[in-house]
């Protein structure tokens, strides 16, 4: 329902808000489907970070959509044909919740039955993510890191020091009004950060882990940036440091793999890292989750900082432009007067 409302609306601001609600709803759905780890991530990403990012972008690009659409009828035709074919395909899919579906008979029984003995971590999702499929997860972390670099390359702004004061004045005028929100946020942010760390360290035993902790941590920092202005946030956390952390996270992850190679095991075979295999697994998973958490959090913060920086640059340009226009007007008036 929300999705239909999203495509019907013209106002992009309402669309972005609705997509936040949509993210939250799908997080609730994931809890109902027993996927608690996924629900964590979706709640932080779908309802938090992606909504904020889209908001920043529509402040730059304008919030209204044109009425024109390309051939809606033929698009509808394609969509209905594809949908019909897919629904025809569903009749061969095993029924929802049936335990004898093929998906539950390949590698999953091994994960469920043996991971307690092999890995020694209660949360099966964590043990699959960080140990059985560590190589896969490494690839995904690298993808996130690359996306961060891409955003940096597209949007990075070289700032000259003399611009700072002007931006500060813009920020101050913008943020002074939201006193209540700022105080509430000041109370909440430490707890959000603490919760992110809890999720990070508790990922072995309950739902949680590096990805979830990273996005929650980043959401807290982004909230701070939204409320107190980019330059204040940049004073607290400077950007080169964040870039360093993002790279270090990937490096830490890779180093754990190399370390297990050097100790005589396979790449990402943590059994050899400590004296007992279970201890080695614990150590390896802990280090890897740290690497993932660092990279995810710092890439998200980096992306947001760059969008924000771009926006400030545009604002500054427009204000300068306006100032120049008014000055030119005044000059012409003075000349007329003379």
């Amino acid at each position, binding site marked *: 329902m929300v999705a239909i409302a999203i495509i019907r609306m013209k106002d992009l601001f309402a669309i972005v808000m609705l997509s936040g609600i949509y993210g939250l709803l799908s997080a609730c759905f994931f809890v109902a489907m027993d996927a608690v780890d996924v629900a964590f991530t979706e709640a932080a990403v779908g309802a938090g970070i992606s909504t904020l990012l889209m908001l920043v972008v529509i402040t730059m690009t304008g919030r209204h959509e044109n009425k024109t659409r390309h051939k809606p009828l033929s698009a509808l035709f394609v969509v209905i044909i594809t949908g019909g074919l897919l629904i025809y395909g*569903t009749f061969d899919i095993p029924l929802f919740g049936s335990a004898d579906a093929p998906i539950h008979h390949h590698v999953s029984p091994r994960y469920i039955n043996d991971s307690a003995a092999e890995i020694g971590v209660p949360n099966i999702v964590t043990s699959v993510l960080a140990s059985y499929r560590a190589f896969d997860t490494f690839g995904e972390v690298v993808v996130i890191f690359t996306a961060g670099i891409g955003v940096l390359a597209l949007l990075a702004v070289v700032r000259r020091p003399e611009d700072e004061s002007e931006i500060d004045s813009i920020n101050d005028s913008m943020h002074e009004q939201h006193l209540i929100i700022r105080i509430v946020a000041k109370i909440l942010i430490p707890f959000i950060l603490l919760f992110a760390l809890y999720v990070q360290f508790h990922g072995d035993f309950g739902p949680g882990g590096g990805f979830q902790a990273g996005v929650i941590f980043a959401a807290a920092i982004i909230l701070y940036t939204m409320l107190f202005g980019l330059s204040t946030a940049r004073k607290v956390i400077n950007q080169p440091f964040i870039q360093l952390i993002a790279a270090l996270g990937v490096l830490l992850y890779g180093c754990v793999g190399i370390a297990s190679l050097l100790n005589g095991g396979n790449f990402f075979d943590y059994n050899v890292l400590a004296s007992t295999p279970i201890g080695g697994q614990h150590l390896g998973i802990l280090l890897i989750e740290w690497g993932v958490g660092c990279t995810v959090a710092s890439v998200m913060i980096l992306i947001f900082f760059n969008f924000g920086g771009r926006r400030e640059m545009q604002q500054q340009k427009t204000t300068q432009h306006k100032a120049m226009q008014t000055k030119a007007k005044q000059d012409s008036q003075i000349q007329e007067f003379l």
Partner: protein
Amino acid sequence: MLLGLFNDWIVIVLMMIGLYTVIAHGNLIKKLVGLTIFQTSVFIFYISMAKVSGGTAPILADDITKYSNPLPHVLILTAIVVGIATTALGLALVVRIKEAYNTIEEEEIQQQDNQIQTMLTQQTPSKEDNNTGEQS
């Protein structure tokens, strides 16, 4: 039977809404939102495949024997975070397009491109004419 396939149908409906948005709408941000809906429908598909009726969340405990499948959870967990990173990259491209063309409607961008193209094609033959004139 019908109830057993209900989740899959919802997934297909969501997926088609996303696809329609990507095809039919000209606004680039709207296209990205459509892409996100498409993405979420795939997530929902995977997660509902993982559900075993009567099972619980895949966190080991002593008195529980039936768990849902952890593997799709792992795949989707990472896919969500990768998804937001790539969406951010798309949004960054939209911002740059806005700066270059001053619009994010696909048709207006195409018009501007066509104008530039026609200007270029008008210029090049005249240049060639000049060259041949100089040579002769």
